[in-house]
C-alpha cells in the first residue's frame, strides 16, 4: 500500500508516511485521511486546498482564515496547520529543513544527551 506523501513539520520536514487512502486530484500525491479533504466534489490534499483557498481570499484575510479554520476544526486536524505553514513560507521565507539537508543525520535517540544544565536561567538574557 502506498504511504502518504504529504509533508508535515514546520522546522524539520518529513513525509507523513501514514497509509494512503487515495490520490490528490490536483498534485497527484498519495494522501492519508488526515491530509485529505473533499473539495468541489473531488478529493484533494491539504497543501492543494490551501492553494485553492488562497485563490478565493485576499492576503489581508488570510491570517484571519487560519484562526477561523482552527476554530472550526478544534477537535480535528488540520487545515489551519497548512495555512500557517504557507503563511510562514510567504511572509518569512522559511521552509524548514528536509531530508536532503540532513543526509549525514542519524536520527537515533542517543545522538545527544540534553543535560538539563542552565534550566533555571534559560531566559535571563
Amino acid at each position, binding site marked *: 500500500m502506498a504511504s502518504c506523501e504529504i509533508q508535515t513539520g*514546520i522546522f*524539520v520536514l518529513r513525509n507523513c508516511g501514514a497509509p494512503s487512502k487515495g490520490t490528490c486530484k490536483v498534485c497527484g500525491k498519495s494522501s492519508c485521511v488526515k491530509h485529505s479533504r473533499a473539495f468541489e466534489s473531488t478529493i484533494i490534499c491539504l497543501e492543494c486546498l490551501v492553494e485553492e483557498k488562497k485563490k478565493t481570499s485576499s492576503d489581508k484575510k488570510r491570517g484571519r482564515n487560519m484562526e477561523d479554520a482552527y476554530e472550526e476544526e478544534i*477537535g480535528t486536524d488540520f487545515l489551519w496547520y497548512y495555512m500557517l505553514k504557507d503563511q510562514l513560507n510567504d511572509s*518569512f521565507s*522559511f521552509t524548514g529543513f528536509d531530508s*536532503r539537508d540532513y543526509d549525514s543525520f542519524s*536520527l537515533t535517540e542517543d545522538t*545527544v544527551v540534553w543535560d538539563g544544565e542552565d534550566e533555571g536561567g534559560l*531566559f535571563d538574557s
Partner: protein
Amino acid sequence: MSYTEARALYDQFDEAQLQFLTTKTLEGSHTPRKWLKILQKLAKFDELADKSRSKSMRKIFLWGFLSVFTFIFTFILIFPILLAAWFAYLAYKNWKQHQFLKGQDLRNQFRKFLVPLIQILREESAEQEKLYLKLDLNHPLSQQNHVDFQERKGPGYPKFKENYYRSSWLNMSIKLRDQSMLSLALEDVIRKRQVTKTGSSGKIKTKTKTKVKHLASVKVGFPKVQYQPAADRNPEVVFSEDANLMLIKWKQKYTSSSIEDNIPLSELVKAISQTYKQVQPLGNLV
C-alpha cells in the same frame, strides 16, 4: 443548546480535568498526543461555555423583564402570577448556568494558542517524546502577580497611578525530531494606569488604561553533531555553546491593550523559525 452540550462534556471530565478547571494551573510531562487527549476536550468545553455565556445574559434580561412585567398584572388578575413565577424561574436558572460556566472559564489563550501549539509540537517530535508543560491561567491581574506601584503626584492635575503586573503563564520544553531541545516561556507584563484629570468645566474624571507586553522567549539547543552555525546568521542573535550543544535564544515581543490578547501563534512559530535560520545541518545541503 450550548449549555446542554457543555454540561454533557463537563460531566465526562476526570478528576485531573476538573482540578484544572478549578485551579487553572497544570504541570507535568506527557507525550503531546496525551496532552491533546486531556486538553482538547477542555478546549471544546471552553468554546461551548463561551458561546452559551454570550447568549445567557440576554436570556436572563428577557426572562427577568417578562417576569416583572407579568407580575404587575397580578394586581388585576390571578393567573399571571404563575406566569410571572415561571419567567422568574427561567431567569434564575439561566443566571445559575451563567455563574457555573463563568467559574469554569479558561482564558482564550488556552484554546486559541496552547492547544494548537501542542498540535504543532506533536508534528515536530517523536511519538514517545514527552512534553514538559507548566501552565498558569489564573487572572494576570491577581495580587500574586503584582510587582510594582508608582504614583505621580503634583500640585494639580493630571495625577497618575500605575500598577505593574508580571504573569509568567506558560513554560514548556520538548526534544524535537532532530534531537534539538526546544524551551519556550511566555510572560505578560501589564501596566494598569489610572489617570485623574479635570475637564474644561472643572469636572474631575478618572480613566483607566491597560497596556500589555506579551513576551515570548525561545531557546533551542542544537546538537553540534548535526548542526553548525549558518554562514549568514544574524550576529545580534544570542548564541552560546558547550561541548554538545549550540544554544540559540530569541525573544519576541507583542504589544496590546487587552489582557485577553496574546502573541499570535504565527509570531511564536516565526520566533522558533528564527533560531532555525541561524544554523545549517551538517549534511549535503542542496
